[in-house]
């Protein structure tokens, strides 16, 4: 029997020493799912050294051998201690997929480099004109000797401007049904013919890119799974993306922040922390947060018992993302005109100047803006509801 409280203490002790004030600051100033890249990489290296970089991985590939409860505790403590988020497209998404579908050679080459941070991965799924409707993708890979020749473009590739690897869905057969002719390829981003255009987000920052492929030669050994079987590989991965996130941890952090913001927001002769109207609205969100936490625990229980979260992942994704957005609105209700300044330098961990706005308000507007994407990426809220309607309700 694992002593979880002792485990929690072990994590706390590690965080106390490993998480420098600079890294903490980077965590605090995170306004989306990504932290400032250098801090994220530095933190990845520390976790890697400690052997904790891939909590979900089996020990044979370098995982720490934790059970679900331990992983949750680890994630929670990192979040509450304001650790930066690590760029997880490799470890969280590609890794498990390679363990399942990859060749022995692929596993030995890629997995360790993913852990160490030598390889930073990004995901090439969406294309202009094919967002949630993946089956209509057009980027093509044509066999030529021992290579595929790739032409086309991928969009919404998060962190591509920092990454050196990309995993892609490409069309290898146009003559069959849309889903049937797709393959899964691993591509080095420094291969000739690849160019990357950053996309400036609504908050003025770059997180997404468009990646262009112009006659890019990719060795055939970089194919994962069978040719034209990319669809099942992708579906495996998408389910991981939906089920792999503990929204409750983020939600709890957001709630804590709102309690504090409310205490600091003047309201008549008192503060918003004792305004019954605001508190009622906040309490309604708290109730949904409690319900979400219990729903996540139910899913975790099912997964632990060997089940597949299936469509319940869709439920959690819808509720987790929409509740997060409601909490963003509650924060906005508190900061008022302090939401106005759009000053990237304020959000840089290195910045040491005047804040312009109260410290608690620095990230609020950017979070409000960036989090609109939460109900769009990884399958829109509409797609999730359709999945629930079809798969759970049988409509």
């Amino acid at each position: 029997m694992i002593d979880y409280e002792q485990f929690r203490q072990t994590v706390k002790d590690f965080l106390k020493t490993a998480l420098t004030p600079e890294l903490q600051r980077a965590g605090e100033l995170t306004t989306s799912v990504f932290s400032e890249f250098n801090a994220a990489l530095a933190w990845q290296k520390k976790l890697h050294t400690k052997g904790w970089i891939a909590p979900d991985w089996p020990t044979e590939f370098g995982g720490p051998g934790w059970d679900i409860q331990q992983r949750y505790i680890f994630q929670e403590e990192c979040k509450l201690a304001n650790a930066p988020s690590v760029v997880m497209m490799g470890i969280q998404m590609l890794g498990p997929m390679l363990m399942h579908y990859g060749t022995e050679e692929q596993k030995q080459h890629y997995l360790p480099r993913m852990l160490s941070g030598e390889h930073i991965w990004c995901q090439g799924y969406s294309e202009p004109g094919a967002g949630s409707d993946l089956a209509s993708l057009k980027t093509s890979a044509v066999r030529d000797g021992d290579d595929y020749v790739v032409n086309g473009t991928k969009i919404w590739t998060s962190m591509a401007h920092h990454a050196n690897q990309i995993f892609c869905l490409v069309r290898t057969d146009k003559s069959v049904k849309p889903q049937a002719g797709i393959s899964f390829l691993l591509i080095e981003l420094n291969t000739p013919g690849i160019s990357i255009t950053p996309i400036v987000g609504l908050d003025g920052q770059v997180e997404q890119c468009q990646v262009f492929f112009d006659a890019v030669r990719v060795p055939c050994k970089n194919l994962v799974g069978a040719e034209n079987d990319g669809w099942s590989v992708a579906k495996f991965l998408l389910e991981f993306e939906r089920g792999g996130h503990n929204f409750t941890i983020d939600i709890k952090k957001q709630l804590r922040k709102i309690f504090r913001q409310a205490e600091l927001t003047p309201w008549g002769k008192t503060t918003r922390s004792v305004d019954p109207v605001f508190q009622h609205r906040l309490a309604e969100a708290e109730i949904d947060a409690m319900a979400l936490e219990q729903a996540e625990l139910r899913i975790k229980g099912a997964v632990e018992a060997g089940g597949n979260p299936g469509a319940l992942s869709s439920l959690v994704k819808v509720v987790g993302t929409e509740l997060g957005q409601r909490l963003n609105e509650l924060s906005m209700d508190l900061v008022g005109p302090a939401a106005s300044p759009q000053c990237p330098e304020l959000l840089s961990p290195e910045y040491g100047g005047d804040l312009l706005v109260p410290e608690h308000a620095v990230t609020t507007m950017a979070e409000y803006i960036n989090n609109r994407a939460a109900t769009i990426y990884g399958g829109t809220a509409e797609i999730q509801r359709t999945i629930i309607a079809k798969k759970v309700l049988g409509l």
Partner: protein
Amino acid sequence: MTDEHKMLQNSAERYLRENYDFAARQHSIDRGNAIDAEHWRAFSDMGWTAMTIPEAADGFGFGLADIAPVIELFGYYLVREPLLESALLAGELIAAASEAHQTRYLPGIIDGSVIATVAQQDATPLTRQGKASGQRLQGDLQFVPSGGIASHVLAPLRHDNQPHWVMLDLSLEGISRERYQSHDGRQGAHITIDLPFDDRCVLVSGIQAEVATQALYQRAMLIGAAEGVGIMQGALDLTVEYTRQREQFGQALASFQALQHRMADMLIQTELARSLVLAACHAWDNQADNASTLALAAKAKVDAAARTVTQEAIQMHGGIATTNEYKVGHYFKRMALLESWPQHRDALIAQLIQNRQASITP
């Protein structure tokens, strides 16, 4: 959940599915029956009345979390016999009283001869009036749920600046009731009490009564919340079934995307509520620190979610749902009344905010 609980759930599911026919329920209401005696007997024969009664008193001693799925079934099948109130709620308070009280009432609750109900949370407590030698117990209890069919009522008494709970046999001289038909197919009553005070009616007093009050109404929240989850599930299932077979403009209603997404929301709300209620029952059974908070949250969540879900169920059915002979509207009506039992959601949330503010150390 153990095999024992699973068995109970399965047998309850089977009995209600096969015997608790909605049309028969309506027919029984139309004939003026406050409860269906056959069902009432069956519930007790199958041991449901004993589910949460302590083993020492010949019950099964199950926790609320063990039987939450069974409580859900009461909502799902729109059971109107007040078993939850009598056996799960009043029974619990009696079980907290002296052995003499337990011996006096619990066998009756288990065998169904006692149908106990509980006063509203905001009821004005009864009083003791007159000289010590000839004191009278007096008061009015308004809107007592299932008060029309109950044999006994649990009521608060305030005397000597102390709270007490009394258990009164409603057939006693000096007790009268004004019965009324309730919108959820039950029979409620206003109960007027004016009789010589007999201290054997006092179950608990003082601190013990205060604790009992807290426990009683938090338990009422949990039981009501679990019933509400069953109501949501019932309303959702009917809606899914109806929209799949009903055609409009040459297409099944269920094929319209706008309705699909709204039914997905009904499912989401039902599952969220179910998760929270189950956790709240667990916390209650284990006397966890956050048991009170979770009970408040669970009932508040169900009240809001079930209001929307039952309204949506009616809307997606259309005209047929506004008729009394169709089932779905009865979920809506039951929920509308359950919402104020034991207190309005706004009061629960106010209490929740107080709990949180008390728990945050500066």
